[in-house]
């Protein structure tokens, strides 16, 4: 009798342990809605920004570039990471030229080359093999390195070819990339080399430095704005005071050109609030002058549902300053005057 009881106890313990397994099933419930997307709209995956946790220095003002455009090349709106993009087409193929400054890549040539090799489906090479493949090239009077990769293609398809020149400067590593169908890229390579030679680099004027001697901008930050860690491609970032759960943030970036013009930037901002693009005619009714003392500086105020974005584009000292206040309308609207004063103030 006792034996049986003991066996039952042993079995019960095992069953109790096994019985605890959880089941996964579809759940249906009603829940309060999320507060609408806020600052994430300004910093989302695929935007070309680095979402890692590395602390990066605020970018220094970049030099201005001018060039002689080869025949058949057409300048198009640059992506977020590029300062210039050109499109080349022939009857069958398409190629693209981009100019991209990226920070902290000096001394990592092997990594860069292998990154592009992997993109076209090639195996990475050892450091020595990469170094052996780098050729000298002149970009705007400065010495750089050039490398080429040609990808594998399926039968009947044109392989992709990339010709990249890179120059490691003190402000950033500059990449000039010609990519596209192999035969078109091969045909355009002499023009690309001439294009690189034609580039003229004008260093930023001393008075256009955004930072003072201590490295911090000299502008006057409105009371109540909390400084936050600026993301890559940003000079500064602030949080405006929260109001009943509504929040907003200010982002400041500076570029050596107008990154595609007012229309492209306003449409990019409208896209962040999930609004449709406007055309030149519609743009005129949306944009106002920021300040009579700042010629060509514009202000735009966009609202969609509870979200609001106030943006300012200010050409200053040969550079373009982009200010953006984005967040819940309840937090953004009361800060409009502060934001305008901030955007007008000299950094």
């Amino acid at each position, binding site marked *: 009798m*006792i034996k049986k009881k003991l066996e039952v106890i042993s079995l019960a313990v095992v069953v109790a342990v096994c019985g605890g397994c959880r089941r996964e099933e579809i*759940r249906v419930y009603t829940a*309060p809605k999320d507060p609408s*997307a806020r600052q994430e709209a300004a910093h989302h995956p695929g935007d070309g920004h680095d979402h890692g946790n590395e602390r990066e220095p605020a970018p220094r003002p970049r030099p201005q570039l001018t060039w002689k455009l080869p025949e058949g090349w057409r300048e198009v709106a640059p992506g977020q990471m590029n300062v210039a993009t050109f499109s080349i087409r022939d009857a069958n193929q398409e190629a693209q030229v981009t100019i991209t400054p990226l920070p902290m890549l000096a001394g990592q040539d092997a990594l860069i080359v292998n990154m592009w090799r992997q993109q076209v489906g090639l195996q990475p090479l050892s450091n020595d093999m990469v170094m052996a493949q780098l050729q000298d090239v002149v970009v705007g009077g400065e010495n750089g390195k050039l490398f080429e990769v040609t990808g594998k293609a399926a039968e009947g398809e044109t392989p992709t070819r990339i010709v990249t020149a890179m120059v490691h400067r003190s402000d950033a590593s500059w990449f000039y990339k010609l990519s596209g169908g192999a035969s078109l890229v091969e045909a355009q390579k002499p023009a690309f080399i001439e294009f690189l030679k034609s580039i003229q680099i004008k260093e930023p004027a001393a008075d256009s430095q955004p930072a003072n001697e201590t490295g911090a901008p000299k502008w006057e930050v409105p009371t109540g704005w909390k400084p936050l*860690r600026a993301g890559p491609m940003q000079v500064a970032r602030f949080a405006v005071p929260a109001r009943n759960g509504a929040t907003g943030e200010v982002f400041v970036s500076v570029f050596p050109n107008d990154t595609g013009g007012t229309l492209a930037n306003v449409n990019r901002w409208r896209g962040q609030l999930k609004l449709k693009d406007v055309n030149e005619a519609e743009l005129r009714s949306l944009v106002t002058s920021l300040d009579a003392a700042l010629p060509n500086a514009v202000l735009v105020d966009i609202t969609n549902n509870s979200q609001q974005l106030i943006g300012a584009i200010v050409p200053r000292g040969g550079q373009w300053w982009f200010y953006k206040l984005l967040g819940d309308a309840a937090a953004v609207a009361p800060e409009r005057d502060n934001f305008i004063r901030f955007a007008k103030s000299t950094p």
Partner: protein
Amino acid sequence: MSRALKFLSSLRLTVVLLGLGILLIFLGTLAQVHEGTWNTQKIYFQSWVITKPLLYHRRWPVILPGGYLIGTVLLVNLILAHFRGANWGQRNVGQVLAHHVPLLALVFVATWVAVRSPFVGMGFFIALLALDMWISRAGPLKDTYTGKKLGINFTHVGVVMLLLGQLATDQLAVETNIRFREGETRSWSEKHRETELVFLQDVNTAQEKVVSIPESLLARKGELRDEKLPFVVRVKEYAPNSKLRERAPVMDKSPPPATQGDGTKLTVEPQPEVYDDKRRNLPYAVIELLHGGNSLGTWLVSILLEAQEVKVGNDTWRIALRSERTYRDFSLTLLDFTHDVYPGTTKPRDFRSRVRLEDPKTRENREVDIFMNNPLRYGGETFYQSSFDEFDPRVTILQVVRNPSWLTPYFGCGAVGYGLTRHFLFYLIGFILKRRSA
């Protein structure tokens, strides 16, 4: 007693199991180098067997007993050993129970008091021991029942409670976290590792209907149906970790991963899973929605993407892959977060969150400070100050733990502590009395 029962209740088995337990902890500690803390916990301690453990950069072709197997056999061994050799016929069972059960209950009460107020609880323990000693040695039970083994029995009860308590914690405890900025209100918390595919539909301006499919069902792929969904969900691709990037028009010649939504502009590449505590996996799935037998298109869902709209007739749904959420009836609003470090270092000295707790059901509305070693306990959950955002001084991270068996280890330790002390004192007093009478 059969041979199997003799084996199961033997002291030799206990020693072997304790040895295996030590080996398991040793190997589990080594394994954290490659597997990370969370995965090691799953593979070594919350499993029945461990096959081909990854140690020192290679997989060893061995099978080892996992934590559940060792724990279960130890539990059976402990219970059976207690009954082994017991001569129940010669004891007054009623008297034993009349002494054991109320005493054990009082030990638990003393433990509960000690959790809330350590000094009062300790006083309770000492008073209880004194009373127990008097009853057993000098009081009404001194001639009839000595309670010789009571200390050992209580120690065994305590160990059984520790084993069962850990099992209950593994099975019932849920850990989530809340990450919010100053000014934000949260009525939900999120799991750190598990994700869910959600279909959202507005109920009114403030609420939405949520149909949540756990990641484990997505991983099986195939078709998923629910009567609340107007479509069938066919999971075409899934990976627990991935890399997402914008499509490069010249480079990406293969078709985009989805025909609708954000996936038309992106490229996704599956990545190996990561297990270390500083990185997280970024799962993705490509799903096809079928309505009335017709395909509505395919969507790429990723934890990095926001909700995407789907129109079915006059209804609008939103699809998103997000961290698995747990909603509650009450909410917390972060009023202020302060994070102080020791001067000249980045070592945290004090970080605390002032939150407003609002519960419409109980009409609770109060401000609470949550800081290190001072969690908020509310609604059967404990809210700990867990972490902060290195780059945003306004963001706090609270860890939320729901563990219905959180008192079990305390009760287990209380019973073990009382049992060992009582055993020692019982024989010490017996020895002293013997010397005196001699």
